């Protein structure tokens, strides 16, 4: 794979990931991850202080499936949708079968009644395995710039 092909593959993964969430195809969201993935939403504050607790943590695809099932069947929150705006992806490291990459994100949240807000901005720090039919996230760290969350965080970032 050339650098250009790799860049394209990684950015396409990021774009498909964001589109699945924004289009409310949450059931597709775990499919962008490996079986033994690690996914965490954590504030920059905790990350920089090396504190392990974030806002959500998973170390298996099953835990992502559970998140979606809980949002669909158990949790109660005002209907809302996200709009992700992603920056170009910077591949920071390339090795056999995997890359590390970072992508800035902004998420605008729109609630049922129409209120819109800049809900979260930050960085994805990703480890992506390549070589299979599609690249997959082995690790995705969602590093939120702000230490505050408005009202609640239900849908994944």
């Amino acid at each position, binding site marked *: 794979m050339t650098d250009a092909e790799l860049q394209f593959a990684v950015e396409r993964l990021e774009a498909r990931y964001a589109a699945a969430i924004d289009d409310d195809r949450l059931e597709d969201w775990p499919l962008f991850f490996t079986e033994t993935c690690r996914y965490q*939403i954590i*504030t920059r*504050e*905790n990350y920089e202080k090396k*504190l*392990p*607790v*974030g*806002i*959500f*943590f*998973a*170390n*298996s695809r*099953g*835990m992502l*499936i*559970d998140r979606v*099932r*809980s949002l669909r*069947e*158990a*949790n*109660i*929150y*005002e209907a809302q949708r996200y709009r992700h705006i992603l920056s170009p992806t910077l591949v920071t490291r390339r090795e056999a079968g995997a890359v590390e990459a970072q992508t800035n994100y902004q998420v605008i949240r729109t609630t049922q009644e129409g209120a819109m807000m800049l809900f979260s901005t930050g960085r994805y720090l990703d480890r992506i395995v390549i070589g299979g039919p599609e690249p997959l996230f082995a690790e995705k760290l969602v590093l939120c710039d702000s*230490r*505050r*969350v*408005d*009202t*609640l*965080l*239900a849908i994944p970032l």
Partner: protein
Amino acid sequence: MDDRPIVWPEPGFSRVPYDVYKSAEIYDAERQRIFMGAVWNYLCLECELATPGDYRATFVGDVPVVVARDLDGSLGGFENRCAHRGALICPKEGGNGARISCVYHGWTYDLKGNLTAVPFQRGIAGKGGMPEDFRREQWKRRPLRVEVFAGLVFGTFAADAPPLATYLGPAIAQHITRVMRKPAKVIGYNSQILPNNWKMYICNVRDPYHASLLHLFFTTFRLNRLSAEGGILIDESGGHHVSYSKAATDRQNADYDAADLRAKNEGFRLADPSMIEGIDEFGDGITLQILSVFPCFVLQQIQNCLCTRQVVPRGKDETELLWTYFGFEDDDAAMTLHRVKQANLVGPGGYVSMEDGAVGSFVRRGITGSGEDREVLEMGGRDWRSQDTRATESPLRGFWKVYREHMSL
């Protein structure tokens, strides 16, 4: 008109006029009569002030304060407002040192809030400077009395507040020490902005009735059905409470199932149940304990997920909820991983806490134009005593009893 005089409806403490959430006048009065009155306000964990010279910026109600461990090891605090022009003396989250200087004009304070230096107090080359009769000792910051109980740091501005242990009372003290049984360490922070009055959140915490009706994730996995063995303890004042349950004692219950809850969904199973696998680290089978100390402190144990929650009013319609997740110094990597995974249950995105953010907003919007309408709190009767069931609202009635005493309402 949201600022009409509050007229408290009878009977007892089972009615709450909605105006109490909406009045700006009430909000201001709460600052003086409750937060700066004869109560103990949670400030931080003692392990966050481990070393002499450590200080942290925190809040008493919405009033900014500094809490510090002085060089002699003693704990104290003071209002975080420079005597000169009112700027925050400590605009950061904290630090370590013998003194703190206001960045504006460099007025400098020791960790007891004494003003120790004023730049150019004598002027420059004989010109300017403060008047001859200016005395730095007159400008000591208003001190906080600070006490520690089982690793939790509390402060009060009131000279007439009883000692902290007396304020907590034996039952609450025992349920605090049950959790805070060895040296703690912080494993994370989160902050959540709630679009509602602080009392709506506090009353939600003290409401055992909603737990298994609103928070369906928990109920589905039988971590907190009202039929599980547990109860409600309320202290002698009515202001503090503990709600606890033991998941292992849960069993099928006809009354419960007959209620036809959305919660009863037998088909729902976790794909990866490792999240809710925990260890009975306290050895008493209690899997859930929610404890509140009047006015604004919550200590939470949900399995191995341990948190303090500091509820900070941010105006009459906004509240900041500060979550501090902790474990113990001797936790190994496996225990920390349990705590990190179970932290998915709580916080701004928690499986069993995200709804608390949603309902506060629903109530705030619902009580628009409520006039002289009021809440009805009659589940479990009309008094505020301890009960051996969680199908009760007695902790809410206890809250309003103490609230009204402080507010003379």
